[in-house]
């Protein structure tokens, strides 16, 4: 099974940009979790596939920076299906929501140390 977090990613960022950058990146990511989830839900509710794809794209990119491998993969699939105007998304959105919460907890734990 793929691990939720790849700590090597943030370690590498710390090596290049320092502890402060690592903290700032994680903080930015955590701050944006709820706005992104809302944006995704609203876009889905109003069948705005463009915004849905774009927000998923953004989330995918952000998740990759912090090493949230599983979340990035779910976001990638959501982006792809939104681009295909696939309307049957409730299951994927539920998975995404769970994964966001779990990633957020895991990040808060590992970075809070």
């Amino acid at each position, binding site marked *: 099974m793929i691990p939720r977090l790849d700590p090597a990613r943030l370690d590498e*960022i710390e090596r*290049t*940009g320092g502890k402060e*950058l690592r903290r*700032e*990146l994680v903080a*930015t*990511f955590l701050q*944006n979790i709820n706005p992104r989830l809302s944006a995704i839900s609203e876009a889905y509710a109003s069948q705005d596939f*463009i*915004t849905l794809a*774009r927000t998923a*794209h*953004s989330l*995918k*990119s*952000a998740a*990759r*920076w*912090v090493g949230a491998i599983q979340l990035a993969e779910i976001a*990638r699939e959501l982006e*792809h299906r939104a681009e295909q105007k696939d309307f049957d998304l409730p299951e994927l959105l539920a998975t995404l929501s769970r994964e966001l919460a779990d990633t957020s907890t895991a990040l808060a734990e590992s970075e809070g140390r």
Partner: protein
Amino acid sequence: MPGNQNRHILLVEDTPEDALMISMLLGNFQFLQVELSQATTRAEAENFLKSDSPCDLILLDLSLPDSRPEETLTELLPLAAPRPVILLTASEDEDIALKAIQLGAQDFLFKGQFSRVRLEHAILYALERQQNVKELEVMRQALQLSNELQKQTLNALNQELDLARSIQRSLMPEAFMELPGLSIGFLFLPCGQVSGDLFDVTQLADGRTVVYIIDVVGHGMPAALMTTMAKLSLTKHLNTEIPLGESMLRVNSDLRAVLKKSRYITAFCGIYTADTKTFSYCQAGHPPACLIRNDSTAEWLESGAPPFGLFDELPFPVIDCQLNPGDRVHLYTDGISELQNDDGKMLGNTGLADLLRHCQNAGDEYSMHLLDHLSEFQGFTPRQDDLTMLYFEVK
């Protein structure tokens, strides 16, 4: 590229984490000092690019809140030009990245897959390429300007040549003419705009008619100028009562002074006396004149003397030839006798005599008929020399 240069970069990116990471990388470059501006929407980016804000390069994420990726490309790339654009994209989006390159983007980088070094190299190369393109454009413009100048110079030269051609043509008789005791016609087809050939007809006060044809060795303007010198001298010395041979010596002396042995001029000069139907002629290194008798037999009029301009003291023998009504005399330059056909065969004296024997048309039509025969012989072979002939028929 020298180190520590200040470069203004516009980062167009709406994902905060991406913006954070990329600005961090940009701030840690080894060679470039980056002044960073950021835009998070296409509208912001457009306003920035339209403003006077300094900007050397654009880092562009295609996914923006107010623009689809394709729109971002088609709208922003033209605004960015000629500044280089590097695309920041996810590895899944290779197709659109390649399309962006076709549309004029310099490069693309996959987010999360590039390091500070990769990013800095990409930016350095893009700026360097842009500089090269700029220099090429400057060179292209310089070349265009130089072409334009050359064209103008060429036009001016062509205009001068046109003028020279009409001046030269005005030195020669225009059309078929009827004189007491003989009719005279001409054929004159220069290869270029001006010719090294010249002919003339003059009536002397005592009723005699002077005819001559000359050929300056060489082509173009220098040869054309020499024909003018020769005409001045011939007009001066042939239009007098002195014997033809003496006139020729004086012309030779004039032209020797001008030509300085570097060039020479061949000529065939004659004086026709209508009362006695006598044609006195003198050849100066020129092809013989061709006489077609009224019974269609051909004779060659030769006197054997060197061209003008080569020797000082050699005499110009004069020969008198008795003509009869219907006899035709043809003075021509070697462009006619050396005309080549498609098999590479030259017309030659025999061919010319045959051709002239078969020209039966009278008066003005004679030259057209002659030209038809010459063209027929020539076929598709391009002409190398001027076609010049003066002919007269005894009445």
